[in-house]
């Protein structure tokens, strides 16, 4: 009677051992790397109907974020401005620009512009800008250097673990409320003095329980 397994099967244990460790390791590494919002969401840069440049308007001309996103301090939503806000200047500046034609159409017809939302939270997360901004979390902390972006790009994962990193220890992310829209603010050398001052003036206690953000 012949042998059931040919000699080449002698390698089975070693091949199985390698595949059995390498396979799951690669699978875990792949999920860790590619399924994370750092991979799936960061870098989202939709093409807008008008190529509005934050680098020009904020970085060069020095407009404050709130000139357009005026409701950020009083509302859950940091609004996209009505078309009239564009026309404040563009009724006289670059009034014949072809790129601005959709803005002029919108202003004339009253139909809102279809700007594409870049930062999209899941519909079951109830974020409020007002609370974060008045607690001294600057725009740049979550949105990145908008003043250097030709086209706005999502810079942070906006994931739950990312939220909780700050909610569990907000001190290093806080700044004076007067500096919230300042894209170039850097913490002073004596960060502890600032933290102590902020904690005295406006103590914060960010929720880490479910109902803090999910209703």
């Amino acid at each position: 009677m012949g042998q059931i397994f040919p000699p080449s099967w002698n390698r089975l244990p070693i091949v199985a051992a390698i595949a059995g460790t390498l396979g799951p390791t690669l699978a875990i590494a792949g999920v860790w790397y590619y399924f994370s919002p750092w991979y799936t969401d960061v870098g989202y840069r939709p093409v807008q109907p008008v190529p509005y440049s934050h680098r020009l308007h904020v970085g060069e001309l020095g407009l404050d974020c709130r000139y357009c996103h005026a409701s950020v301090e009083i509302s859950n939503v940091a609004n996209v401005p009505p078309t009239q806000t564009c026309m404040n200047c563009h009724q006289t500046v670059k009034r014949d620009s072809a790129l601005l034609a959709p803005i002029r159409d919108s202003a004339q017809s009253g139909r809102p512009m279809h700007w594409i939302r870049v930062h999209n939270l899941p519909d079951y997360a109830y974020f409020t800008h007002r609370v974060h901004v008045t607690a001294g979390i600057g725009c740049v902390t979550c949105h990145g250097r908008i003043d250097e972006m030709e086209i706005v790009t999502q810079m942070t994962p906006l994931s739950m673990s990312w939220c909780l990193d700050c909610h569990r220890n907000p001190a290093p992310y806080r700044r004076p409320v007067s500096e919230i829209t300042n894209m170039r603010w850097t913490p002073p050398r004596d960060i502890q003095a600032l933290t102590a001052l902020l904690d005295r003036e406006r103590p914060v206690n960010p929720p880490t329980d479910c109902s803090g953000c999910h209703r």
Partner: protein
Amino acid sequence: MTARTRRVLGALALTSVVALAGCARGCTSSRPPIHINPSMDDQPKVRAQAASRFFYNGASMREPVPGTVPIGGLREDEPFFTGKGADGQFVATIPHPVDDALVERGRQRYGIYCQPCHDARGDGRGILFQRGNVPTATFHQEKILKYPDGQIFDVITNGQGLMPGYRWPIPPADRWAIVAYVRELQRERQARAASAPATTP
């Protein structure tokens, strides 16, 4: 080339193709993010400023019905909300006490909404003047020095000439704060002019 080398080379080529076609964390894309577990991330509900296929103008947010007053939206205090008294004339002074906090608030708000055109000192040499050569009013002219406070409030609210109204982004209380700060700017300039030696170049 042995079959073994060929196999190794093939595997290497396949890995590099996958690595190149895919993309590292943080590389940009104009396509919406793919959520591996869609969960209930997108719910059929209306969110602020979302588009709507139901309403004629494509907006899901509705304007209030004409003649209705939302809670907290009653505007009984005529001078505070319009800058005009019962006689229809502009009020001469800000209809509530002016303190340092109000002027400071005005300075902040001025920096956001007014400074782009009127510049930090109110000389009218902001962006529009520099970029578009558009004449912008200076606050230090005789005409505006003589305006009653209510009229400055009215200009912020409804606009004047090329300036559009800033009724939407600036709530009434902040408009009065800006009026207080503009008065402060004018006072400073007047004081400096008065104290400076009368030298004409």
